């Protein structure tokens, strides 16, 4: 049996016995073959002695059981690491940030407590996946949509707490922002409700976010200050129709004004679906097209096109631009999508086209006009999450296919936030491609396009493969950390990362001698004096382990 560092075998045995008393013998896992199921399937430390592994796992079925587990952990100073569905692949999976922690597996807490159609909100437990919530809504024929990330088996609560994003309207795509009210088991075992939930018998817990006084919800995301056992979310009323169209532009210099126009349209809510930008001439797809490319192959490129791409600098050469114009391949393609009454979204699309008409040679095309609700059996003709439908098609990334004969073992996401400007797209490509070339990293090797999950910024989301070869993984890890630092030098930071990179990322957030990290530690010491809750998560270490930070 594995043992958490600093815990005697007698104490650990006592803790496990109490866990068994709390949840039942069958829901405490201590045999290696069972605990190994909590390894991060995409671990960049695969097959290495430093791989982050649990000592045991315990799976409660209720908030009361979570409280009891936390009290026991305090008694024996056993580190815990809660996971919700454990599917945070590419960002750490189900493995702890500190080896030897006992994983608190919340998958059994899978109740959809409420879906309120009239006021469009839900209250769920952490074990509820997007598939589960979608199914719950469909079975009851409720006219609300979920907003899900690409893989639909993740936790609605867990994804929001890790500040993930989705693909429907701007109001819902930021999953943490769209939450309303939390229930948290604090590190001392006390139960806390935030927002209006702090009022006994509250009537508006999922209807008004901040309550009164300091609004503390944010500190329970990407942190280790408690175990969230319930969380409310605002849902989008089912729209009447969906329209998706493309704006195609032919000049390299169109990029910056294209972004400015998009920003205006989006911030003014003339368009509010997921904007998706591609560079067909550079062979870079829109996110909504990526699964199609992975499944059926990318568009054919002629030898002349490939040769021009190989000599282009930062995605540009006059010859490449001329080739694009001659061949009718757009330099930039913006996919705009709209949800709402047909007459409203047609008018929005018309207005969007009017704003882009100033670009010489701009071409417009309606790709999809869909009357909603659609037959769910037909949703996979589209990028499902844009229609609020969960799927697992994103696993075509890295999987074996005719276009990818050598599948990876997983991937780690490099995902820096950069400004919402065309200039920033080019600057980020310049900075990261130079660094990636020097480090021999397999990303930013061609001109990359960012994603538009959030309205006021861009985010690049690039997969760095995890392989079966520890030496390669080590090289990629070191390169990944250097790319994080290079981003920091230019004022850019990651939005989210796996435990193995959390220190590197948080070191970038160093304004005023790292006061933010010190503030986190001040909170940690006050809220979790025994340091039992997810030590090391997002580089927040309890006092007795703080030397790890340096």
């Amino acid at each position, binding site marked *: 049996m594995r043992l958490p560092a600093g815990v005697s075998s007698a104490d650990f045995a006592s803790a496990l016995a109490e866990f068994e008393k709390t949840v039942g013998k069958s829901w405490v896992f201590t045999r290696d073959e069972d605990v190994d199921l909590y390894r991060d399937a995409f671990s960049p430390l695969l097959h290495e002695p430093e791989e982050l592994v649990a000592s045991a796992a315990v799976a409660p079925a209720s908030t009361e059981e979570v409280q009891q587990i936390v009290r026991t952990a305090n008694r024996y100073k056993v580190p815990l690491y809660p996971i919700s569905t*454990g599917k945070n692949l590419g960002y750490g999976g189900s493995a702890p940030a500190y080896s030897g922690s006992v994983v608190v597996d919340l*998958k059994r807490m899978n109740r959809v407590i409420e879906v309120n159609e009239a006021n469009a909100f839900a209250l769920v437990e952490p074990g509820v996946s997007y598939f589960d919530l979608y199914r719950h809504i469909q079975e009851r024929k409720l006219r609300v949509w979920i907003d899900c990330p690409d893989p639909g088996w993740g936790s609605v609560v867990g994804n929001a707490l890790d500040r993930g994003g989705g693909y429907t309207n701007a109001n819902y795509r930021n999953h943490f922002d769209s939450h309303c009210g939390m229930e948290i088991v604090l590190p001392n075992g006390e139960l806390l409700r935030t927002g209006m939930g702090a009022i006994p018998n509250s009537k508006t817990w999922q209807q008004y976010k901040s309550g009164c006084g300091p609004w503390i919800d944010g500190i329970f995301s990407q942190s280790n200050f408690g175990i969230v056992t319930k969380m409310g979310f605002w849902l989008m009323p089912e729209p009447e129709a969906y329209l998706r169209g493309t704006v195609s532009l032919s000049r390299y210099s169109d990029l910056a004004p294209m972004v400015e126009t998009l920003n205006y349209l989006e911030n003014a809510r003339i368009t509010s679906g997921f904007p998706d930008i591609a560079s067909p001439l550079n062979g870079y797809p829109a996110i909504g097209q990526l699964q199609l490319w992975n499944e059926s192959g990318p568009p054919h490129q002629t030898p002349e096109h490939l040769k021009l791409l190989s000599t282009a600098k930062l995605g540009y050469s006059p010859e490449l631009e001329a080739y694009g114009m001659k061949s009718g391949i757009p330099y930039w393609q913006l996919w705009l999508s709209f949800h709402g009454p047909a007459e409203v979204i047609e008018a929005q699309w018309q207005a969007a086209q009017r704003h882009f008409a100033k670009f010489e040679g701009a071409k417009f095309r309606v790709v999809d006009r869909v009357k909603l609700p659609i037959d769910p059996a037909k949703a996979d003709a589209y990028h499902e999450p844009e229609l609020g439908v969960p799927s697992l098609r994103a*696993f075509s990334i890295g*999987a*074996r296919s005719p276009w990818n004969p050598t599948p990876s073992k997983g991937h780690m996401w490099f995902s820096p936030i950069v400004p919402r400007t065309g200039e920033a797209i080019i600057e980020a490509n310049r900075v990261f491609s130079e660094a990636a070339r020097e480090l021999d990293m397999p990303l930013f090797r061609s001109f990359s396009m960012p994603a538009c999950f959030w309205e006021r910024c861009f985010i690049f989301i690039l997969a760095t493969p995890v392989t079966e070869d520890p030496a390669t993984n080590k090289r990629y890890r070191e390169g990944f950390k250097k790319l994080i630092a290079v981003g920091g030098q230019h004022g850019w930071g990651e939005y989210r990362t796996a435990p193995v990179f959390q220190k590197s990322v948080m070191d970038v957030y160093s304004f005023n001698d790292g006061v933010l990290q010190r503030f986190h530690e001040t909170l940690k010491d006050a809220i979790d004096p025994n340091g039992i809750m997810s030590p090391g998560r997002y580089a927040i270490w309890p006092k007795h382990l703080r030397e790890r930070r340096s």
Partner: protein
Amino acid sequence: MSRRSEARVLYASAAAGLTLATLLAGEVRADESSDPYAGGRAVYTKWCAPCHDPGVIHPGTNALTVKYKGVKPGVLLEWKDLQPETVKFIVRHGISVMPQFRKTEISDADLDALAKFLSRNTPH
């Protein structure tokens, strides 16, 4: 709808019905009096179908099609030599980008039922 979209609908339609219909059905009631594989089928529907149902839109099916180059079907449900122990090993260890599954997701009893279902065509 554009020609490209139509083409996408056409190529996807063969597989589409099964996947989403099964997802919508949720956990199928395991009535083994009429279907000896009902329990395993329900586990398959919930956990395996989104990646392994028929059609190129399912990454597991696409991967197996390429891996076995016609020697075995890409669709797991059509295999005629799948051993129960192989099913159990892959589910508990993962392979390529498929992660392993924990016992809070697929219990040992569910895994037995799944292995029985997926090896139903295998001669004993």
